[in-house]
C-alpha cells in the first residue's frame, strides 16, 4: 500500500481540484483544499519513513515492465523534497485562508485553490517520475497552472508578467522536448534508468549528440528555473503575483526544474560522462554569475517583493553552483539548498505580504520603524534574513559552508571568494530593512508600539516555517548524508 503513495498523492490532488470546480461556496473550497493538502502531507511522512528503511521505491504504472509503462522512482532525496514541498504548500494555504481576500476578487478566489492543487500535483509528478516524456507533460502542466496563479490579480502588470513568463517557458519546454527527441533517437528509451544503462557504454560514439542533449536540457530547464542570464521573467512574475502565489512560485516551482536537471545530468548520464564535457564548467559559471549579479540587482530594487524575487535569482545561483561542481557532495548540497531555501523564501515572501498589507506600500523605504509597530513579525523576517546572509546554524550558512568545503575538495579554492562576496552582497540588501526597522531614533519617531500587531494565530504558519527552517539547519549533518541522486 505504502508503495503506491506517490501516485495516490498526485491523484488525490488532481481529483479534489476537479471537485472544487463544482463547488460555489468559497469556504468549502478552502476547507477541501487545506484538507487534501494536509492529507498528502501525512502520506508523504509515511513515504519518507518507508524510504528511509528501503532506500528506493519504484512503481510501474500502466505496465509491469518499465519498457512500456511509466515508472516512478522515489529515493531518499525525492521523498524528502516532496515532504518539504507539501509542508510548505500547507503553510501557504493556511496563510492564504486569512490574507488572500485583500488581493484577489471574491469570484476568482476559488480558482487559486484549484490551481494550487494542480500545481502541487504536477510538481510532485516531476519530482517522483522516472520517465522523460512524463516529466515533460508534468512540466507543462506546472507552467500553465503557475501562469494561472499569477494572473489571478486582474491588473495590467500581472497580464504583462504572465505573457513574458509564458513565452519564456514555451521556449524552455520546446528545447526540453527537442532534447528528449534526441535522446530517444539515440537510445530508443524514455525511462531514465534504461537510458543510463545504454548510454554509459555508447556515449563515446555519439559525443556531439550527447553535447547537444546536455546543452538543450541545461538551457531549457535553466530558463524555467531562472538561472542567471535567463531570469528576466522572474522578477515581474514573482513580484506582481498575489503573495501566497509568489511564495509558492519562488519557493517551489523554480526548484523543481533544477531538480529535474540534476536527475538528467547525474542519473540519466553520470558524473563521469558529464564531467568529460565542457557543460559542467558552463553551469558552474552561470551559477557564480547568478550569485553575484542576482544580489547586485536585488540591492538596486526599491520595492520589497521585487527585492525578495531578485534574491531568488541569487539563491538559484547557489543551487546551480552546487550542481556545477560535478561531485556527489556538490549535488547533496544543491538538494539541501533546495529544501532550505524553499522554507526560508516562502516565509520571507509571506512576511513581505503582511508588511505590504499593513503599511499599504510596496516600497522598502516605507518600512522604516516597522520594528516598533510589528516587532514579532519583523523578528521572524530577521531570522529568514539571517539564513540568507549565512549566520551559523541556519540553512543558508550550512549550504555556504559545505559548498566552500567542496570547492577545496575539488581543488577550486578561488571559487570560495565568490561565495564570500555573494554573502556580503546578501547582507547589503537584507540588513538595511532589519536595522532601519528596529533602530534609529528618526526611524522610530511617531511609531506606536505594537500598533499594527497581527494576532498570533495568523502568524502561526509563518512561525512554523521559520521553526522548520531552524530544524533543517540543526539537522543538516544527518540530512546532507541522505541526499544523493
Amino acid at each position, binding site marked *: 500500500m505504502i508503495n503506491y503513495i506517490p501516485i495516490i498523492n498526485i491523484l488525490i490532488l488532481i481529483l479534489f481540484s476537479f471537485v472544487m470546480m463544482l463547488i460555489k461556496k468559497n469556504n468549502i473550497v478552502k476547507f477541501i483544499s487545506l484538507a487534501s493538502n494536509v492529507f498528502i502531507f501525512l502520506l508523504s511522512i509515511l513515504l519518507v519513513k518507508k524510504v528511509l528503511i528501503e532506500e528506493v521505491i519504484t512503481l510501474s504504472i500502466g505496465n509491469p515492465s518499465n519498457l512500456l509503462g511509466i515508472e516512478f522512482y522515489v529515493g531518499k532525496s525525492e521523498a524528502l523534497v516532496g515532504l518539504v514541498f507539501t509542508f510548505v504548500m500547507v503553510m501557504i494555504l493556511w496563510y492564504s485562508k486569512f490574507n488572500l481576500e485583500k488581493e484577489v476578487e471574491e469570484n476568482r478566489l476559488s480558482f487559486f485553490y484549484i490551481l494550487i492543487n494542480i500545481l502541487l500535483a504536477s510538481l510532485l509528478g516531476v519530482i517522483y517520475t522516472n520517465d522523460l516524456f512524463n516529466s515533460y507533460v508534468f512540466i507543462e502542466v506546472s507552467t*500553465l497552472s503557475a501562469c494561472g496563479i499569477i494572473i489571478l490579480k486582474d491588473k495590467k502588470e500581472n497580464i*504583462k508578467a504572465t505573457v*513574458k513568463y509564458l513565452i519564456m517557458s514555451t521556449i524552455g519546454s520546446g528545447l526540453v522536448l527537442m532534447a528528449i527527441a534526441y535522446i530517444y533517437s539515440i537510445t530508443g528509451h524514455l525511462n531514465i534508468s534504461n537510458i543510463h544503462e545504454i548510454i554509459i557504454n555508447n556515449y563515446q560514439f555519439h559525443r556531439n549528440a550527447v553535447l547537444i542533449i546536455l546543452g538543450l536540457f541545461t538551457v531549457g530547464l535553466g530558463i524555467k528555473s531562472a538561472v542567471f542570464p535567463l531570469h528576466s521573467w522572474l522578477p515581474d512574475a514573482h513580484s506582481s503575483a498575489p503573495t501566497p502565489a509568489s511564495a509558492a512560485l519562488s519557493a517551489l516551482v523554480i526548484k523543481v526544474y533544477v531538480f529535474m536537471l540534476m536527475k538528467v545530468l547525474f542519473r540519466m548520464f553520470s558524473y563521469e560522462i558529464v564531467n568529460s564535457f565542457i557543460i559542467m564548467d558552463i553551469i558552474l559559471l552561470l551559477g557564480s554569475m547568478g550569485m553575484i549579479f542576482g544580489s547586485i540587482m536585488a540591492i538596486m530594487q526599491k520595492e520589497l517583493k521585487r527585492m525578495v524575487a531578485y534574491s531568488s535569482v541569487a539563491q538559484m545561483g547557489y543551487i546551480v553552483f552546487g550542481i556545477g561542481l560535478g561531485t556527489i557532495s556538490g549535488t547533496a548540497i544543491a538538494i539541501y539548498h533546495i529544501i532550505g531555501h524553499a522554507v526560508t523564501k516562502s516565509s520571507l515572501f509571506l512576511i513581505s505580504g503582511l508588511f505590504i498589507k499593513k503599511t499599504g506600500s510596496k516600497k522598502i523605504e516605507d518600512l522604516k520603524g516597522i520594528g516598533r509597530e510589528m516587532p514579532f513579525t519583523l523578528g521572524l523576517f530577521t531570522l529568514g534574513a539571517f539564513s540568507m546572509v549565512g549566520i551559523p546554524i541556519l540553512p543558508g550558512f550550512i549550504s555556504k559552508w559545505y559548498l566552500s568545503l567542496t570547492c577545496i575538495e575539488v581543488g577550486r579554492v578561488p571559487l570560495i571568494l565568490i561565495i564570500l562576496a555573494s554573502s556580503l552582497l546578501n547582507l547589503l540588501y537584507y540588513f538595511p530593512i532589519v536595522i532601519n526597522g528596529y533602530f534609529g531614533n528618526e526611524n522610530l519617531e511617531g511609531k506606536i508600539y505594537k500598533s499594527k500587531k497581527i494576532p498570533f494565530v495568523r502568524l502561526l504558519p509563518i512561525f512554523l516555517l521559520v521553526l522548520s527552517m531552524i530544524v533543517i539547519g540543526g539537522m543538516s549533518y544527518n540530512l546532507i548524508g541522505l541526499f544523493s541522486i
Partner: protein
Amino acid sequence: MDIILTNYFETGAVILFGVGFATLMLHRNLIKKIIGMNIMDTAIFLFFIAKGYIKGKDAPIIINSFKGVDSYINPIPSALMLTGIVVAVTTTAFALALTIKLYNHYQTVDLEVILRMRGENND
C-alpha cells in the same frame, strides 16, 4: 552533405525548428511570437515522428490479420506526439487568450512597446 540528404526528415525538422525559434525570439508582435511557437512545436513533432517511421511499413493497426512485427512502424513516437499536440494546443489557446486581455489593457500587441510602458503608473 550526403548525411543531410539521406536524413531529409531530420534536416527539415531542424530547419523548421530554427525558423520557429527565430520567429519566437526576434519578432515583437505577440501574434507572430505565438505562430513561431507553433512552428517550433511542429518541427519537434516532425522530428519525433520521423524517428518512429520506417519506410514502406504500415501504421500499427491490425486489419483482418496480423502481418508480423516487421511490417509495422514504431507506434510510441506517434503516441507521444499526440500528447505533445494536446499540450501545444493548450498553450496556444492560453497564450491567445492572454493576448486578447493584453490588447484590452494596452491597446497594442507589440511587446516592446508594452515593456517600455512599465514604470508609468505603478512600478
